């Protein structure tokens, strides 16, 4: 469990963090997407049209802040020391001057670009985890986030063809995903909604019964791949025993509830009530029961239409990613910037490497107080990067740069050049006529 370091999060530490460690220039380089260069194809107004939003102490919200370069952002953040920094969309015009356009007509001030974002929050899994609930996470339930990263990241790359994807720990109980390809940034709300729906399997709310319903003679290839490559293994090798999904009556009833055939459910119930007494087996009780469940449901006599998908439905219910749909569907949703410090846990929102996400441990993410201690423990030097590398934030920044920022900027540069050359070509042609 991650303890809440309320006392550790003090404003002096935050000031020091912004002063010495926060990677302003990396952040601005990222959201500039190459437009801060010298190339004539660069759109110099681009960064200035991006909304930033600050949350100050005492919950004062400052929306529609905009900055023309890293230095302006840095000065403003150092001055105000926000407890949270959010990044919004790129608008048609400078958002801080939006009132000047409000009168003209209704579309003068509108979002034009925004990363495709996903927000996955552990609280949405409260009905399938028994280790903790609400805002708490631990190493037993964290694999749910690992699954989410694996499933969504794979599909974003293999199905949708995106390349520049940033996964970030949200600081407490979830993960954020930023898809930054040019194509992704220019998606309309409708297209964003379509992608969110493509990923949406879990359809339950507090008052409906069945939360996952899979019909049809086959699973869509995306779901089938996710099932065989990720979900099944994590369910059987990790969550089944980790969460003790079948260990007690209350818990196995939840799974029996999902079997539409009452006679099968009661057959299993009977067996499991008996086996409780005669459990001399060396094998884990969850595993034994799951095998029985699979055997009964998949045996020849029960291959009825409604039961065919039952095993899959159970696995999907307990493992498949649950997205906050509204965040992904609309361009103007704000999302917390990477490298913010979570005000409750004091942990830094560090990037997660999707290729090694199973190694990520939220309980060892550097905290603000830890970083400040590391800063203080050695005499201060002036070199910026040197300072960073002395702290445990160094690795996170290195990861951000090498696996995300550098390839992204290379692609942006190419895109800007190609776009410019194309325009040049076109104008030459039209002159010719």
């Amino acid at each position, binding site marked *: 469990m991650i303890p809440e370091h309320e006392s550790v999060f003090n404003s002096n530490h935050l000031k020091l963090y912004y002063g010495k460690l926060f990677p302003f220039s990396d952040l601005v380089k990222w959201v500039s997407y190459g437009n801060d260069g010298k190339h004539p194809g660069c759109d110099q107004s681009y960064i200035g049209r991006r909304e930033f939003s600050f949350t100050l102490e005492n*919950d004062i919200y400052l929306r529609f802040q905009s900055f023309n370069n890293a230095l302006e952002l840095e000065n403003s953040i150092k001055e105000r020391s926000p407890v949270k920094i959010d990044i919004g969309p790129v608008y048609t015009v400078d958002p801080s001057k939006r009132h000047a356009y409000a009168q003209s007509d209704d579309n003068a001030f509108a979002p034009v670009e925004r990363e495709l974002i996903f927000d996955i929050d552990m609280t949405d899994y409260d009905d399938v985890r028994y280790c903790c609930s609400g805002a708490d996470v631990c190493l037993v339930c964290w694999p749910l986030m690992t699954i989410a990263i694996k499933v969504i990241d794979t599909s974003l790359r293999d199905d949708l063809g995106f390349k520049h994807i940033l996964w970030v720990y949200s600081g407490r109980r979830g993960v954020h995903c930023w898809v930054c390809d040019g194509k992704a940034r220019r998606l309309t709300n409708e297209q964003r909604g379509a*992608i969110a729906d*493509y990923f949406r399997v879990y359809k339950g709310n507090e*008052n409906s*019964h069945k939360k996952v319903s899979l*019909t*049809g003679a*086959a699973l869509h*290839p995306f779901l089938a791949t996710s099932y065989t490559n990720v979900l099944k293994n994590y369910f059987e090798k990790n969550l089944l025993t980790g969460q003790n999904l079948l260990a007690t009556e209350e818990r196995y009833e939840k799974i029996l509830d999902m079997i539409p055939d009452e006679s099968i459910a009661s057959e299993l119930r009977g067996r499991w009530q008996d086996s409780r007494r005669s459990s001399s087996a060396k094998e884990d009780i969850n595993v034994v029961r799951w095998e029985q469940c699979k055997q009964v449901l998949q045996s020849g006599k029960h291959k009825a239409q409604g039961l065919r998908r039952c095993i899959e439905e159970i696995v999907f219910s307990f493992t498949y990613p649950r997205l906050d749909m*509204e965040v992904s569907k609309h361009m103007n949703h704000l999302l917390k910037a990477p490298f913010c410090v979570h005000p409750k846990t004091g942990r830094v929102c560090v990037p997660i490497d999707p290729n090694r996400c199973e190694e990520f441990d939220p309980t060892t993410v550097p905290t603000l107080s830890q970083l400040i201690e590391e800063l203080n423990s050695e005499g201060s030097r002036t070199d910026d990067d040197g300072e960073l590398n002395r702290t445990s934030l160094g690795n996170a920044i290195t990861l951000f740069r090498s696996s995300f920022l550098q390839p992204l900027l290379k692609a942006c540069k190419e895109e800007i050049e190609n776009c410019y050359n194309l325009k040049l070509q076109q104008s030459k042609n039209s002159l010719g006529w």
Partner: protein
Amino acid sequence: MEIFRPHSRKNVFSSSNDASSVPTIPLYRSAPPLEVRLEDFESFAIDRLRGFFFLRLSTFVFFASSNSKDLLLIPSPFAPRVLTTYSASHIYFSRGFPMVKELLKVNMRHQYTSEVLNKDIISHFVLRLVYCRTEDLRKWFLSMESALFRYRFRLLSAEAQKAVMEEFNLPYKAVSNVEFESVKDKLVQVARSMGQPSTADAIFYKVPFEEVPELVAGRKVFIKQGYAYVAMNQIVSLVATLFRSQLSKALILTNRKWTSSIREQEKHRLTPIVEALSSSYLGPDYSQSRENADISLKDIEQFAKSSFPLCMRHLFDKLKEDHHLKHGGRMQLGLFLKGVGLNLDDALAFWRAEFSKKVGLEKFEKQYAYNIRHNYGKEGKRTDYTPYSCQKIISSTPGAGDHHGCPYRHFSEENLRAAICGMGVNSRAMEDVIDKVRNRHYQLACTLTFEALHGMSCDAGINHPNQYFSDSRKILDSKTSAISLSRMLQSRVFWLLHKVLEPFSGVYLVPQVMDLQRENVVKSSMQPPKQFKCGSWNSSHYPGSWLKTRHSLLYTFHLYG
């Protein structure tokens, strides 16, 4: 002033189609360069609205007697039972499309055949003007025009469909044999997941996935490396999406022109027509609270029990129980209460009283009070937000821990029964409600609940939670059963029905078989009781029984809107 003789005028739109021999469908790329008589301006528009109306009817089965112009409309699920009960010799029956085609033709027709296309295009551009002016109007118009486009596109020959694709400059080529073989397994898998037969010999197009959002959303295509494999029979989705997005952009431009110049220039001529055409369709949005009364904090509890629709009652109860609601629930209930007349101070007090029990006073003021003030237009961009309509609530997607949404749609049957029972609905009415839910008529289910609780019919049906509330208050406050006819006539569907059904000598709307038998509609050889007549417009023709039968049909339309 020049008087037009339409048949002497060249058909200005057919030029592009003349070149190719394949007849296609109009794409409305540019406004008609011709003059239109003022009365045509309005009547063409109304005819097109009728056309839209019939498109919505395509989920119904039509029974028509063979010797008259009478028409019977029955929701598809009930049709087979009717057919087996009664001899088919008197009636012919058509499902969806063919009849729609007929009805569309009736409304899109023109006395001179050469003018049919002109009328089509003129009416389209008139409605653009009418429906460009707000987000809601645009949305409705877009969905209607796209439906019409889809419907027409499906009727085209393969050749003509290709011609339309070319008109849109769709650069897509059919997937080659080699590539097809490499992904064949996946394509078959997708087809099977949708319960369709194998697609072994189908033609597929490879299209950037973002151009077929609706196929992506339903997982109806295989997607690989950014490309969706779209089967020939799905291509309508691609073309319709393009049509829709182009029209959407055009509407926004039209709106700009309208606000910047046309409205003022046409102040005395077109503006009144345009405004009348749209306002007669859209109902009130309940952004202003009830004219007469603000409700006070102490009344809420009692009102919640007597006059809240189930969706709000549930949120209210959960709030009292948990002292907390997630964002979606706070929005849905909060804006409803605002619409009901709870002022900002009372709203803050109301939410504070509950939330402070769970999260504490300090956290409430820090985290939640802002949002409440925001809803009342006191923070941020200072928009005065409107309460959610049924349509919006039904289409919401409540997730884990959420209590918002439409209970009729989002609850399991078991939970719904318990909830309705908790409101005090008796078991007989309950079965009717559940029956509607099973047929996905959520608003109708809510209407039946209303009627069961208030002991009288709800003439306009329920399409807004705040309407439920105000109708309920009216009944409970005045204890009078009279619901004014004028209000009924204002109801948007009624207006449309009147306009649409004029051409038929008699039209009978039959919600389901039970009613059909009870009223002996079909038994008397298609001659129903006089009061069911709808062919002529006379208020005395609409007693209670007719109003009852009307619901099912009308509220199905709302769902498709």
